[in-house]
């Protein structure tokens, strides 16, 4: 793996937008990894929560776009609760999903619900998941 690190206008724009949307500053993260150690979904992820923040710090938007992590976050705030800096990583994921929507990225839609689940799912689940992941 090799990468030519570039923090140019586009990268800065991306980083600034994430900061704006979350009202925080991703550079506050010093990569202790406690979010990942706390995350109940870490086992399913291709990028751990701390790596998502790292990628934002480095302006590597492209690497995040395809990551499963964005749709594995259930906003349980375990990461934020134990983060020594109190960074809301669920909000960072939400911000990134939001930024990807105009680029045509749709993470989930009403048609994606499995028909056999549709009749048993509690209402709040459908509302929540639609709100979180749909365009």
């Amino acid at each position: 793996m090799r990468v030519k690190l570039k923090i140019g206008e586009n990268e800065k724009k991306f980083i600034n937008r994430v900061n704006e949307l979350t009202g925080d500053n991703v550079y506050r993260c010093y990569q202790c990894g406690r979010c990942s150690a706390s995350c109940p979904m870490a086992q399913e992820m291709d990028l751990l929560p701390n790596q998502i923040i790292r990628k934002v710090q480095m302006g590597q938007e492209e690497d995040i776009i395809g990551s499963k992590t964005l749709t594995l976050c259930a906003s349980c705030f375990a990461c934020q609760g134990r983060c020594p800096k109190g960074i809301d990583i669920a909000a960072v994921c939400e911000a990134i999903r939001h930024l990807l929507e105009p680029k045509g990225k749709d993470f989930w839609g009403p048609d994606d619900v499995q028909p056999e689940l549709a009749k048993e799912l509690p209402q709040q689940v459908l509302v929540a998941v639609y709100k979180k992941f749909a365009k």
Partner: protein
Amino acid sequence: MRVHYYPGCTLKEKATNLEDSTREAMARLDTDLVEPEGWTCCGAEYPLITEKIHGLIPPVRILRQVEIEEGSKVVTTCAFCFAVLKRANKAMLDNPTLHTRVNEYLADDILIDPTTKEKRTHFESYNGDVQVLHLLEYLRDEVGLGHLKSLVKRDLSHIKVAPYYGCRLLRPQKEVAIDDPETPTIFEDFLNAIGCTVVDFPFKQECCGSYLSASMPETSNEPSYRVLNSAKMNGANVVALSCPLCYYNMDTRQDRIKEEYLEFNGFPVLYFTQLLAWALGADVETLGLDKHLCDPRPLFDIKQNAEDVEVNL
């Protein structure tokens, strides 16, 4: 006593056992639950980013309705609704920008007055003055656990309960937490007050998989299984909770957990209000126990307790 109560949409449909047991229990505590006129869904999830302001409209509208009806408090049992209402309320208190924008939007909202049936518009700003309480907080702070204990009619000491908080009652700490997020005791104190045997277990604040059970159903088996298994390993015979979504993941989906974890042979899950109503002497039929996938009825030893009820009554 009369208090505003926001049930939320799930309680009217899939979680009627939570709704019914809540009403049954509160009636026995002489508390009249008043639903705000014309309430809607709260939105289930609080918007985490600043630009998604529309997510604040439904909860603030509900809270404002409570205020119009001269309520100073609103009680919820659903942990999701609780978190959304509480965070929205806090935003109205602490965030001047959101306060202005949401109120501007709601100023032209139309509402039918509950008494005069007149259409109203041009409302004054909602300033976050309604107190949002989870029922556990209401029981602790308004009813009083000592008083509650004195009203208990049945012996529940044989029920070994693992209290499951999940995420929404405890995090984010500064905005919603009803107790310390790492070492909470409010649920335990409540269970002790109604006479259950409390079982401490390390997964009480770990996530159950939440709404991923809709978008990626296979992923929520493991977190839910770990919670149930931990409760069992620590000697509980039931998990108690307050969230219809956690209930769905941990009870309704138990057949799918069994498919993945062959050694798992089921574990009962209850709403805390079912235990409360039962302790206060409610009829077993009112608790909606037949809705559970893993049958909890063996825990409700009706024969033994019926006599106690009569004696106490």
